[in-house]
């Protein structure tokens, strides 16, 4: 099993555009501030929002705080929801709008842990492959901290979430060409940072 695990942007776009049954009723309930509407929205969409938040901030605690902020903001934010895309996509947009504070917190925590790791020099406890994967993930999370926020968002949506540039443009409310430009610069910069870290 090789590259078959990488999904196409078109497939992801179709998945998010297809509204699950009852979504219109859920949105109406959110607008009317019905008790239980936010709970239902959470039960349906928390996995997608959490997965996005974790990829975005690279820190479980900061991601969980971001998930909370998204659903607490939902009753107010839903007034802007136009139902052109699925509610899940709208929730991702809310997460992006609330991400800045959590990104800073996650970056601070990462730097602190790295300083502690240098002092403690813990022996590795994971098998080689898992350790290598953890090292790569940590290196990329650190590199993402050095990216401008706009490039980071585009890289996350396109290369981690495998969304098309068109969908990323819709979520970020920017032109498609801008998404592709930022993605190009983001990849260039990340390749350079990772190459420097990979050299002995």
């Amino acid at each position, binding site marked *: 099993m090789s590259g078959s695990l990488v999904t196409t942007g078109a497939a992801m776009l179709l998945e998010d555009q297809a509204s699950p049954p009852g979504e219109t009723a859920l949105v109406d309930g959110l607008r009317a501030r019905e008790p239980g509407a936010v709970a239902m929205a959470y039960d349906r969409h928390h996995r997608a929002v959490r997965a996005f938040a974790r990829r975005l901030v690279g820190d479980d605690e900061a991601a969980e705080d971001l998930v909370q902020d998204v659903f607490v903001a939902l009753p107010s934010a839903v007034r802007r929801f136009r139902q052109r895309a699925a509610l899940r996509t709208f929730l991702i947009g809310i997460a992006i709008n609330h991400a800045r504070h959590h990104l800073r917190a996650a970056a601070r925590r990462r730097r602190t842990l790295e300083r502690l790791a240098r002092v403690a020099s813990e022996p590795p406890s994971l098998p080689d492959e898992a350790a290598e994967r953890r090292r790569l993930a940590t290196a990329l999370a650190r590199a993402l901290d050095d990216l401008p926020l706009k490039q980071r968002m585009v890289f996350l949506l396109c290369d981690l979430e495998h969304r098309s540039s068109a969908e990323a443009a819709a979520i970020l409310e920017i032109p498609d060409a801008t998404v592709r430009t930022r993605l190009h610069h983001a990849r260039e910069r990340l390749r350079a940072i990772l*190459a420097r870290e990979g050299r002995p």
Partner: protein
Amino acid sequence: MTDEERLHQAAWALSLEADAAPAPVAATRARILQRLQQSDRPRARRSSLVLGAALLLSGSVALATVGQPLARQLWQAVVDRYGPAATGARGAPRPRSPARPPIPAPGSGARIVPLPPPVAAPIPLAAGPSPVAGGARRARSGQRSQDPSLALFQRAQRLHFHQRDFPSALAAWDAFLARHPSAPLALEAGYNRALCLVRLGQRAAAATALAPFADGTVIHYRQAEARALMQALRAPPGGQ
């Protein structure tokens, strides 16, 4: 390895690491609902006071004749609700307003109970399963609430994603789903079980397990990935 390959691998590793960690699903849900309830109380109080004050201050003839008894009733309702201290009126203490009914947890009919007061010392993570006290726990900084289903889930995750012992991981996912078929993490466990079957080369069983995720019977954020896996499983064994 080229720089492009390194970036691609790092992106894949970051996604995998992000998905592997367990999540305090129930605790976060309760925290969200608690924050919403706390933010709704001041809004309701302000609306009632503003409405009562607006009616009383309007001073029209119609209000003086027809509306006066109504205004008197409204004023009494405000005094009863918020008390003489809030309104400046003398009268009996206001009755306590009925508690807002809690929003039930999904599927179980259980009530969300108020959170316990904070404790001075951090709660250490239990090595094994710990009993659930009932209701929600606060998502404390650096800590996670533990319940038996979570401990089983974490064990299966370690076997699957860290030790890469797929036969043992498959048994662990099966054990989790047998014991906790309705847990918040059951969908995630079902999907991970399907991934195990793919890893073990059990193509028919993997396709059966992936089908509900791929065809949308189960609403899951990895539907597109499931579809891609199904397509790969349909290809002849040993091919690309």
